[in-house]
Structure formats: C-alpha cells, structure tokens
C-alpha cells in the first residue's frame, strides 16, 4: 500500500445524528469522530443497523427525512458541512465529493444512455461544452476499464452487466475529479470475481489520483483487501479505530474479535469421511431451458439454465453447489424440490423418479425434500403465526392440528427460539431468528433431503455463523442430507463435505471440499478462489 500522507481531507468530530421518535434507538450515530486523509482508504465496517452509512449520508447532505445531526461537525477542507445550505451542499456534491452506491442498477437512469448520464454530471456543474463532455465521458469509461468503451457510451444501463454498471457509476463519481470518494457497499451486489475487479479498480484509481476514499462495507474480507485504516462501528458507536493491519491481526475490542472470528474461515475444511453407501439423491443429465415468448418481430430467446447436470448425494452428506449469478445453481435447487419442472433428465430420490411426478402424486411425495429459502423476510407469511407456519406442512399431510402444533413448539425449541414462539407473528423476529423458523419449517416433515438456497446470504456475518452452526449441529443430530446452494465459497468450505462448482448451467468441477480448495483443477475454480476477498491478507486466527 502507498504511504498515507498526513493531509486530512475529511474530519468528523463528535457527531451525533438523531433518529425520529419511535425508532429503536435515539441516536443513529453517537459521538463519532474519525478522519479521512488524502491518499488513504478508510473502511467503515459494521453490521446492518450499526449506523455505518449515516455519517456518509450526513457528509453528502443526504440524510433521510426526520433524521438530522444534533451535535458535532463535519469538516471538509476547513468548511463545516453541517452548516451548509442545500444549495451550497449541491455545489459540493459531485464536484468535490463523489459517491458510489450499492445497487448499480437502481442508481442509473434506465432510460438514458451511459454517455449522456456521465455528461450530465458536467452539465449539472455547468462545465465544458456538450462536445467536450462526450469526449470526457469516453475518457472516463476507458479509465474505469469498460470493455469496448465506444460501444458502451451509447449503451443503456440494462445492456451492461452488474460489474460494468458499477464501473459506469465510478466513472460518474470520478468525472469532476473529487477530492473525496464515498463508496457505500459498492461491491455487495456483485459476484466474487466481479467484486475483486471492482476493488482492484477502486484501489488503482485512488492511488493514481491520490484521492481520499471512505469505503463502507459489512465484509471484513473486503476490508482486508483494500483498507489503510479501519473504523468498526456497532449500535452507532465506534468500537475500534486504527490502521488496518493491527486491527485485523490483533483486534482489541471483543466485538471486533467476534466479527472477525465469525467470518467463515478461510482455512480449508478438514478431510471428512464420506460414507460409501448407496446415494440418496441421483441427478442424471438434468436439463432446463427457459424460453421467453417471442413476439411477431422479436425472436424467442432461450437460456440454458441447466445443461446436462449430473451429480449424486449420499445419505448424511452435505453437497455445496457454488456458482456466480446466472450459473444455474438456484434452478438446480428449485428442480430438486420440484418448484421447477426439468425439461429432461432424471431426479432419483432413493430410487423414486421425482422428475416425472405431477399433480397429487407429486404433492404426496413433496414432504421428502424440503427447502430453506434465502430471504428470511419473504419466506414467512406475515399473517400466519409462527407455530402455524411450521405446522401447516404436517397438517397438509394428515397430522391432526393439535399434534402438529405441539411438534412445532418442539422444533422451535430445537432451533433455539423456545416453544413460546408458536403464538407470535413473524414480524416480531429478527432476520436470523426468522431463518431459524424457516429451518424448523423445513424440518417439520422429517424430510430425507433439505435444499438450502443461499440460506445465510441475507444475514450479517455474526448471525450467519450462528445459523451455520445450528445447521451443522442439526445435521449431526438428525443425520440430515443437505444440498447447500451458495455464491460464497467461504460459507461452502465451512459446511460442505463435497463441492460442485457451476458456471453457465454446467458443472465445471466437483470434488471433496478439501480437493476444491487445495487443488482446484479448472481455471474457473481457481479464479473463484483467487477472487475471495481477504484470502491472502493476514486475518486474525479464527476462534
């Protein structure tokens, strides 16, 4: 990393930001002070609700309605940003301070060409002539490394991939050569390999231009990859602040230690004995093609979501399906639980071919394979009590209601929520707790196989670790078989016996977790492993 100079660009002092009445706490941010210096990347890390984005929003003058700073000051080049009028603030935004958002799709105007959107930044600040603006836009696109920039400048956002859109966002943020760049979770919505490229780009641009960067993230892997200095936040307060290396290697605060320990370990999982019994699930040459209906002038489009996929899963085994978005991993999971109907191929569960079943016959077999869903908020009916949500499966399969509800209580106890949760509604629970309810629901029918589709992706790291631990424990206790679908190799390494790597609907490589991590055969697997943030950086020994 480059030598950080001492010139302070942004200095936040004793900042308090008040939340509106009725929020879960009075202050979003309390007594926060930190500095960002020229030529350094300052990472603000925290879990959801830690207030990590609030200070950045205050810097940009973009605090939500009803939320305002009550104490402290934000000094930017000697000016207190909190004292500025909206007009003065607007003049600063873009010109001196650039910002990149998390979701590159919603941050770009879908109906405007990329070049015009970048030119608009100059227009907003009354700079250059229209012709010069276009030329600058092209230069910027070249600088952020978009393939075929002459074509990209005339493209609409939907024609670009997620990573390319994020590059456009960066180009817009950099257009006026800001002194400070604020990046709010800029890589969270991206695949690992794309994330690695974007991080590389941000670091590269920062060094070339000597900017100060304020980088907000929840991922300690990303911190290890990019940060010069780190500020760890929790419940609106700073718990640890310092240079990246000492904080990561030797965290002083218990919470930082817990957060770092909760990162699914980069260490290769120990070799596990896989039993050589007859396979529970056999997938043979499964294929699924999605067709979009064509119109009179538009040809129909075909996407091969699954292309000749074959794999087996032994009883009591956990197989991880790993791949980036669009790899077909979720389609595979949905075919196994038969939410999708495969076009061809066989799905043998203990010898029964599930792929051919339909209607009532399928409904009778459904209890054998269950699923844990990704989004803990969308997967529970907001109007159904938790106990009923779990009991409805057994009831649909003929168990009397009273017995099913009693079992639901026992299951809730088993996943660590206590039987009293039966009478409560989903909105009374946090994300992690809801995911536990989802697990209890999947277990209610005593399934032979559970498909977990990105079951921990939506959770904070510390909660993620707890849920993974619960799954591991239940797996041992109930000798479950799991098909674990994830985009996160670290998570897969944590829990899986075997790993299957997918790309473009095909299986690229499969083998034991150890094998995949230590001796990946295929180039794509190697790329995936290399892209894991923080893999080479020194991270404190995991607990």
């Amino acid at each position, binding site marked *: 990393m480059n030598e950080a100079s001492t010139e302070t660009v942004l200095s936040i002092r004793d900042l308090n930001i008040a939340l509106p009445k009725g929020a879960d706490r009075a202050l979003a941010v309390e007594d926060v002070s930190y500095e960002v210096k020229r030529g350094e990347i300052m990472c603000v890390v925290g879990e959801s609700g830690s207030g990590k984005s609030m200070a950045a929003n205050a810097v940009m003058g973009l605090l939500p309605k009803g939320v305002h700073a009550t104490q402290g000051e934000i000094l930017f080049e000697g000016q207190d940003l909190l004292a500025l009028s909206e007009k003065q603030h607007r003049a600063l935004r873009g010109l001196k301070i650039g910002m990149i958002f998390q979701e590159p799709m919603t941050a770009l105007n879908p109906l405007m060409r990329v070049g015009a959107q970048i030119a608009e930044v100059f227009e907003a600040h009354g700079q250059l002539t229209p012709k010069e603006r276009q030329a600058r836009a092209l230069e910027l696109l070249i600088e952020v490394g978009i393939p075929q920039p002459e074509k990209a400048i005339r493209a609409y956002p939907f024609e670009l991939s997620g990573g390319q859109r994020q590059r456009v966002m960066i180009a817009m943020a950099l257009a006026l050569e800001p002194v400070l760049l604020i990046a709010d979770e800029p890589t969270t919505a991206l695949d690992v390999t794309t994330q690695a490229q974007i991080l590389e780009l941000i670091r590269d641009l920062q060094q070339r231009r000597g900017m100060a960067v304020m980088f907000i993230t929840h991922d300690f892997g990303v911190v290890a990859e990019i940060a010069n200095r780190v500020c760890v936040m929790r419940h609106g307060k700073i718990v640890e602040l310092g240079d990246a290396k000492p904080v990561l290697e030797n965290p002083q605060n218990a919470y930082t230690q817990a957060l770092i320990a909760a990162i699914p370990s980069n260490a290769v999982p120990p070799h596990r004995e896989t039993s050589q019994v007859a396979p529970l699930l056999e997938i043979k040459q499964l294929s699924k093609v999605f067709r979009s209906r064509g119109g009179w002038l538009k040809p129909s489009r075909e996407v091969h979501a699954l292309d000749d996929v074959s794999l087996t899963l032994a009883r009591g085994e956990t197989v991880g399906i790993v791949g980036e978005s669009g790899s077909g991993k979720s389609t595979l999971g949905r075919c196994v*639980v038969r*939410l999708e109907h495969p076009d061809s191929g066989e799905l043998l569960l203990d010898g029964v071919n599930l792929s051919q079943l339909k209607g009532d016959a399928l*409904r*009778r077999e*459904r*209890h054998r*394979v*269950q*699923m844990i*869903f*990704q*989004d803990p*908020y*969308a*997967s*529970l*009916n*907001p*109007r*159904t009590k938790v106990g009923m*949500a779990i009991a*409805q*499966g057994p009831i*649909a*399969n003929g168990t009397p209601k009273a017995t099913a509800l009693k079992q639901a209580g026992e299951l809730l106890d088993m996943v660590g929520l206590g039987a009293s949760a039966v009478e409560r*509604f*989903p*909105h009374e629970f946090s994300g992690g707790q809801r995911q536990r309810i*989802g697990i209890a*629901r999947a277990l*209610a*029918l005593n399934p032979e196989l559970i498909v977990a589709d990105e079951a921990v992706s939506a959770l904070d790291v510390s909660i993620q670790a707890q849920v993974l631990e619960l799954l591991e424990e239940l797996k041992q206790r109930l000798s479950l078989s799991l098909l674990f679908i994830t985009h996160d190799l670290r998570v897969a390494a944590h829990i899986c016996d075997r790993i299957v790597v997918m790309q473009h609907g095909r299986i690229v490589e499969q083998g034991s977790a150890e094998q995949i991590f230590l001796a990946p055969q295929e180039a794509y697997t190697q790329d995936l492993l290399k892209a894991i943030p923080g893999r080479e950086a020194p991270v404190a020994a995991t607990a």
Partner: protein
Amino acid sequence: MSFFARFAQNRGALIGLIILLLIIAMAILAPLLFPESPWRMVQRPFLPPLSQDGFPLGTDTMGRNVASGLMHGAWVSLLIGLVSTSVALLIGVPLGAIAGYYGGIIDDILMRFTEFFQTIPNFALAIVLVAIMQPSITSIVLAIAIVSWPPVARFVRAEFMSLRHREYVEAARLVGQSNTTIILRQILPNTLSPIIVLASLMVATAILLESALSFLGLGDPNVMSWGYMIGAARTVIRQAWWLSFFPGVAILLTVLALNLVGEGLDDALNHKLSRER
C-alpha cells in the same frame, strides 16, 4: 398502536366515519320517527322547509313528507350499496384469484370474459339490465353488481400474480398444501386490506348508480330512494329547490363519507403492512 388509533390519525376518516354513523342511525330510526309510509300524501304540496311543525324539510309536489322520504331513502341507499358490493366481491374475488393464481390459459379465458363486460359502458349496461328484469330492489342490486365486478377481478388477479411467487407461497407448495388451501390461507389474507379499501369505495359508486337509475325512473316503485326524489323534483327545481337539494346533499355526504373512510382504512391497513413488511 391499535387499529382504530391509526385510523383516527387521519382526521378526515374520522369525520367520514361520524357522518356514516349518522346516516346509519337515520336509516335505523326512520320507521320509529316516521312510522307512516313515505309515499303517503300528508299535507298540501310545495310546503317550504320549516314552515310547519312536523315537516322540517317541507313537502313535495304530491304533499309527501320530504324528511320522511329522506330517512327511509337512507335505508334503501345503504342496503343497495352494501348488498350490491358484496355480490360484486363474490363474483370478482374468486374469478380474479383463480385467474391470477393459475395463470396461463385459465387466466386468458377468465380475462377475456372480464373484458367482455368492461367493453360495455357501465351505466348503459345497468340500464339495459334493469329494464329487462323489471325495476325492483333485486334487479337493481344485481345490475349494479354485474357492472361493478370486473375491476375487482382485475385487481385481485394482479395481487395474486405478484404474491403467488413469494417464497412463503412456494414454501406452502413444498410442504404439500393443496392449491385451494394456498389460495385461501396464504394469499387471500394478504390481499384483504386493499380489497376492503376498494369495497368501501365501491359502496359509494353503487349508491351513485342507484340514484342515477332511480332518477331515470328505473328505481323500485315500492321504495323511496334519494335518486327517485331528485328525479321527481327535477321539473319543479325552480319553484321548490328543497325537493332536490336535501336528497342531493344526502347523496353527496354519504359518498364523501365512504370515500373518507376508505382512505382512512387504506392508511391504517397499509401502516400495519409496512410494519410487518
């Protein structure tokens, strides 16, 4: 916060509710305060309001008591509004639910059927239906229901289409719940609050439709309704303004009250949803 407290936060809704309760009280008290039929000629015609005790709103062209007609009419208007809305919901909700949940060819068939009704102007269809079936309360209720269910069906269909791919619905399919159970237990409860809001506005529209039909002389000849009163008074509007003014105000207030209540319900129910996510 309780449901009512959230409802009461919208002051307009509270006013609407009070007006509505007053109108309901009018309907209930009508037979007690004016036990005689509102059709009976009780005084000399064209008596202005407040000119004689017992006739606060005066008498009409035939010497009938306007106050009595207004109160008995409240009962008819509310009854027709509520019953025809219920019938429209009974047709529209199941059709929309089935079309939205199953999709594909079933959806195509049901939606073409719905469009068949939507291509004919509402009021023209209602007139034709009442004229064919002979004017009576039943035929009016049916006619109003038949012209007002298509928007309900479309609305419920749209809600079902967006909800049927929710993860909790997929989870219910996975545990082997039947389609009927999923429709009734998983999806329908989550569409209920917008349906309630829609229904409160439909009651208002139904009252307007009934008034318009009665105005044209297609009302039930045996019951006094606001629309009939206005219709009968239209020829003498310059001599006796009160004959059309009071029923007109009654219709205006009722429809306004229902709209305000609908808006308040919308606020209260949506607040709950946003909290529950």
